[in-house]
Each structure stands twice: as structure tokens, then as C-alpha cells.
């Protein structure tokens, strides 16, 4: 009986206080500021850059390696994302537009519908249904749409999206994906979208 209670208590504690690890931004090789490299996958089990074999939900869509990012205050943060997931489509096409990033545009090397590699700078994605995910920090007004990988693209390839934004004063800001890409009812904001550490995270500015 006591053993059972101890087991329950242990489980409860690990459940309540489980918190994803923190990824500290690295200084950029060129120019000033810091950079962060992320990967978005349709299922954690088929991650390429940052495999996470011990994850309890190998079939969940997720940002990798972690979603707790630490960056310095009052500096330029460059984020490059390997987007390996297909398109889910936006519910609110307003989110097809990039906002709050330096220059108002993000750099993207991607594969078009024919599977041909393309490179370019964009301020928004013309087709709202082509979004795979998005990277948004509401309190900093940052929003970047991530193009879903084209069906014609070669297997194992990814779209690479790079953008920069300025951080202000210190604080903890949430960031999330605004594309309903989780499971759970037709509203699509289930499991990975409502669990911390998958399509949700915090940006620790200090």
C-alpha cells in the first residue's frame, strides 16, 4: 500500500514538475547577435537533425530539439528552421503574413510544386493552404509562416527558413505554432498543440 502511494507520488511529481530542457542560443559566426537552429517534424520518430528517441509521443508533430529557448536581451536573434513537415493549411489566412522580423522578410530555400529547389526572400506566403507550421512570439509581435514541404520534394529533404528579430528587455515570452497541426477533434489543436514542449515553448530573454 505504502509502495503504491510512493509510486503514485513519484509519478505525480514527475508529471507535474516535468519541464523541457533549455536550449541556449549560440553566437553567430558572421555578424553580431545569436543564432538558433530548430527542426520541425511531422513525427518525432522521423527526426533528422535532432532525434529524440526517448520521447513518450514518437508520433507527435513537434519542434526539435526543445522548445525552451534562451537568448540574450536587446540583441538580434537569428532563427533557422528545417521544415520537414507537409502543409496543414491555415484556419485564418491572416497568418500567412510575416510580421515583427527584421526587414519584414524571411529567407527561404524550398521546393516548389514540381519538386524543383528554389531560394528567395518573402514577406508572406501567397497560398494560405501551403503553410506547414508557423513560428510566433505574440508578445514580441513576431510571426513567421513556414512553408510546408512539397509532395514533389525528394524524400528526407526540408525547406530551410531563416529570419531575425530583435529582443527587448528581459522576460519570459511564450511562442507557439498557429497552424492547427495537432490531433483531437476537427479543431486540430489537440495533443502536440496543447502540450508544452512540442508545438509550444517559451523564449527566455535575459
Amino acid at each position, binding site marked *: 500500500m505504502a509502495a503504491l502511494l510512493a509510486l503514485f507520488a513519484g509519478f505525480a511529481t514527475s508529471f507535474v514538475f516535468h519541464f523541457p530542457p533549455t536550449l541556449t542560443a549560440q553566437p553567430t559566426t558572421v555578424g553580431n547577435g545569436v543564432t538558433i537552429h530548430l527542426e520541425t517534424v511531422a513525427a518525432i520518430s522521423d527526426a533528422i537533425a535532432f532525434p529524440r528517441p526517448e520521447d513518450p509521443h514518437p508520433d507527435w508533430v513537434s519542434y526539435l530539439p526543445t522548445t525552451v529557448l534562451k537568448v540574450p536581451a536587446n540583441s538580434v536573434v537569428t532563427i533557422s528552421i528545417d521544415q520537414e513537415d507537409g502543409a496543414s493549411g491555415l484556419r485564418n489566412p491572416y497568418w500567412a503574413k510575416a510580421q515583427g522580423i527584421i526587414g519584414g522578410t524571411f529567407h527561404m530555400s524550398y521546393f516548389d510544386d514540381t519538386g524543383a529547389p528554389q531560394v528567395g526572400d518573402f514577406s508572406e506566403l501567397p497560398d494560405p493552404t501551403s503553410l506547414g507550421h508557423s513560428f510566433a512570439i505574440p508578445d514580441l509581435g513576431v510571426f513567421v509562416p513556414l512553408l510546408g514541404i512539397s509532395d514533389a520534394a525528394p524524400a528526407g529533404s526540408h525547406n530551410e527558413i531563416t529570419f531575425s528579430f530583435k529582443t527587448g528587455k528581459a522576460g519570459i515570452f511564450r511562442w507557439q505554432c498557429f497552424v492547427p497541426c495537432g490531433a483531437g*477533434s476537427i479543431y486540430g489543436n*489537440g495533443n502536440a498543440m496543447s502540450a508544452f514542449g512540442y508545438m509550444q515553448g517559451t523564449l527566455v530573454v535575459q
Partner: protein
Amino acid sequence: MAVAPAVDDGPPIIQSSERRIVIPTNILTGIALAAVGYWAGAQLGISFALNDAGNTEVLLGYTFASIMFLVGIGFANYPLARLFGWRVTPQPAGDDHDGPWRYLNLSLDHKVIGVQYLVAMLMAMLFGGIGAMLIRTSLLVPDPPIVAPDKYLTLVSMHSVMMIFVASAAIVGPFGNFFVPYMIGTNRMAFPRLEALSFWLVPPAIVILLAAPIFGGFQTGWTGYTPLSEQADQGFDSYIVGFTLIGLALVVSGVNMLTTIIQLRAPGMTWTRLPIFVWGVFSASILGTFAAPILAAALVMQGLDRTVNTTFFISSAGGSPYLWENLFWFFGHPEVYIFILPAFGIVLELIVHFSRKPLWGYRTAVVGLLGVTLLSWFVWQHHLFMSGIAPALRPFFMFSTEMISIPTGIVFLVAFGTMWRARISMTVPMLFSLGFLFNFLIGGLSGVFLSDVPSDTTLHGSYFSMAHFHFTIVGGEIFAIVAAIYYWFPKMTGRMLNQTWGKIHFWWMFIAFNLAFMPLFAAGLLDMPRRVSTYAVSLQTLNDWVSVWAFILFASMVLFAINIIWSWFFTFKVAPANPWQARSIEWMLPTPLGRRNFEKIPVFTGGPYDYGNPSAKPAADLGGPPDRGMGSLGAEPAPS
């Protein structure tokens, strides 16, 4: 410990025809069969699931586990015996076992069930309280590095649902089941099997709720609004099954209570002599019986939405979230009066006995309780003022909501009339009753703020409303429950609780409670919404203050638990039969109570509250000749 010690009547007579294989049914078989049931249900769900959301197996698993648990406890024996014609040997209410073991078995003895309820409810309260402590810990800092926001919302949801379980059963369950038969003078309930069922549905509900984190928990709060609940993982299935079980418990206990109070009152126990506590239980049972089925139906709809892909609550497919909000609150508002009506009963009962005056305005008090019972059916949309459901009806619901303060005011009037020029002895139960009056006054007044649509526009869904219902439920009902425990504990367990520590407990709990929850009104007015894992940095001082006092409040409950355990198991002095020198019938009986309530059905000769009335006869004549009409209730079972 033993509520009713063994009655030494020699070895049981076993006729040769009865020597058969013994298949015992007790809590162990119950747990074993529950495990089997979960496995079977899960397999069934996996094979028949219509979608791959994984809810079918969990829901079926929980359902089968609950049913098999009840079978293992022994609820199937009687129906099976009736079905296959095995002989049913009459046996006195209660069971074969003595000592602690009988409390882990199916028992039809209302005394045993009362104690079972008491222990189960205290444990559930502990779980819910731990949840509250974790919540306050997480709110020590405005941003969530302590507890991740999804875990935080799971904590909030489990705390709220667990405490709703407690609040809806913690008075009618322990004290209603234990004392109503004594107060109305019968040896048994009308439907002892339903009574036992109403208890044994509770442990599975608690366990299933506690199992939610295994499947990721749920983030919907106790209101379980759709479509948020449609997004939730299998953790939400715990909410569905657990709440359904509690709803069933409310219904069966209500059917049993109402029938008992209507039909089994002993001779002389007229409706106008009924103790006010019984009236409280009666009105709460009315609400439970007829409101809980609505919840059960709504939860069935949620389950169907999650398993067979119906769309009751999905507005883009012909359903509507409004349907859930209406059904839920049509249950949910009577539900909160299920909490508070028996608390009114307890407090008025205690104030009478410790003021040593008759209940002032007995009939008015009854009218007040029944008035609340009636009105509570017509106010549910005040939870939906902002929702856009039928705005044209808002004036009506505003008015009906404020109407409720009239019968509530009657309760206060009756309490004051009773205390007027009384001889008040400040015992621990009386202290908690007065604490109830104070806290519930604040809860009620803040409720008026919330009842007007314009003011509700600012306060709705904020910490103000959260503080409001914590003042009514914690400061109100929980204080009443604690008062009742201090008051009736000697009669229930044969042990007196330590009164000195009781007084310390009261002041500790009262001060900590008010200092912890009063600032939350301010937090609500300073635009802090409910159920938030973060808040404005400017509110951190206030939230830290609240958290600290919440911890102190929890410590006071720990002190209470220690007092209970120590006095119950480690003091060996049997309590006096009537420590409070009260007039009501349960105190005319010896302590510890006999296994049978009454050797002869009592004849009630006076009201329970005739203090200071020289011409008043004692409440009941216990030794009187058994009345033929009802006497058959008390007669020994005919040996078959």
C-alpha cells in the same frame, strides 16, 4: 474504532443446506475484477473504435472497470440470486465482519456507510488540497518555470473536479446516511442496496480521476466546455466517467434519501418535527436526484462525440457549444445548492443546540430551504450572461438569481432569531458554525455583485468570481462539514475529538482562509482572469501573499487530520453518550451505538429543539410499545 461492536449471539447457525462453496466478495476481489474489466473494456474499444483518437478503449475500459469493481464488491450477488433463484437468507443489516475489515466490504448498515463516506471524502479532500497547494506553488511566480502551463491547467482541472466530488457528497454522504435514520427513527434506509451503491460509486470515480495524468491529463477545468474538451486527449475521459459515476451516486442516494424521509418516519415524527438538518438533506436530495441525470446525459453526449464521431457540440457540423453550456449549467447551478443546502441544515441545527433555544421560526426556515430548492432551477443562465445565449432572457435570470438571496436571508434571520438572548456556549462546532455565517455572508454579498449583468461584465470569469465561490464552498460548506465532524464524531466513532486543538484549528483555519481568499477579490477587480498559469507582474506580491496563506490554511487542515487520527485510533476513552447535552434523539442513544439503531421503534413525543420549555416532553420515547403500523420496521427478521 468499531462503530457497532460485535453482538455476541453465539456461533451462527449454519444449516446443512447452506454449506456451499464460499466465494467471498470484498474490496480485494473488487480491485482484481476492476483490473480485468479495464483490460477487457480496452480490448473491446481497440477492436471496435470508430476513430483513432484512442478515446474508445479508455472510456470502455473505465466503464467496465467500474462495473466489474462493483461486481467484485458484491453488488451482483443479490441480482444474480434473484435471477437464478438462490435462496436469500435474511440477515441483520450490516455484515459478517467486525472491526476495520467490515468497512472494506459491501455493507448495508447505514452507520458503516456513513463512516466509509467520511473517510473517503476526507481522503478526496486531501488529494484536492494537494492539487490546490501545487497550484499556489506554481503561482508564486508570474511566469511558468515551476509548472508548465499544460500541467498547470491539468492541476486546476483535477483540483476543481475532485473538490466538486467532495462538495457534492461530503455532507449527505457521511452525516445524511449516518444520522437521518436515527433522526427519523428507523432501523434502516428504504433502499440499503442503493445506499451502499451510492458510496461504492465514489472510490472508482476518485481513482479514475486520479488516473487522468497517465493519459496526459485534461485542461478544461471542471466546466469541461466544448470544443476545448473535444481537443483534449484521453485524459478527459477520466472527467467523463468520473463525473458520470458521481452523478449516478447523487441520483441513487437521492432516491434512497427521499423515499426514506417520506416513508420511514417513526410514529410522532411529523413533518413539522423533522430536524432542520433532515430538511437540508431532503432539499439537497431533491436537487441531486433530478439535476444529476441532466449531467449524465450531457456527459454521454460528450462520450459519443469522442468515440462514435457524433457532433453534438461541434458547431461546424450541426452541433453547438451552447448545448453543453446549457445542459451543464442546468445541472451545475442546482449542483451548487446541493453543496450548500445541507450545510444550512447543519449550521442551523448546531446553532440551536449550542444556543440552547428552540429553532426560531422553524417553518420559515423550512420554507427558506425549499425556496432555494425551487429557485435554483431557474438561475442557470447567470453563468452564461456573457456567452451570447438568448440575451433577451438576461433580465429574467438576473432577477431570479437575486431572488435567491431572499430565502438565503431567511436562513440568516432564523440563525439570528435563535441566537437572540440565547445561552451560547462557544464550543468548537459552534465556532465553526459562526465562521460559516461570516464566510457565507461574504460569499453571498459578492454573489450579488456577480448577479447584475453590468457589474458581471467586469467580474465574470475573473478571480472575483473564483473568490466568490471559494467563500461559499470552502468558507461555507467545508466549515459546516468540519463543524459537523466535531459535533457528531463522538457519536459516529465513540471517540471525542480534542477540543483544545479544535479551538486552535478553528482560529488558524478561519484567519488563514480569510487572509488567503479575501485578496483574490482584489485580484479579480485588477483584471486577473481565472485559471491562468501566468499573471501581470504587478500582481506578484498579492499572489505570493495568497499562496503563503493558502499553505498555512492547508497546514491547519493537516492539524485537523492529525487530531482526527489521534483521537480516533490512539485515545481509548469512550466518549460520553451526550457530550453536548443536546436534546435531539441521536444523543439519547448510548455510545458506542448498538448494531441495531432501535430495539423498539421510538415514538416521537416532542420536537428536537424544545430547549427551555418546561412543558416540553423529551424528543422521543425509546422504550415505548412498538407501534403496529411502523413497528414491523423494527421487528426482528422472520427466520426463514
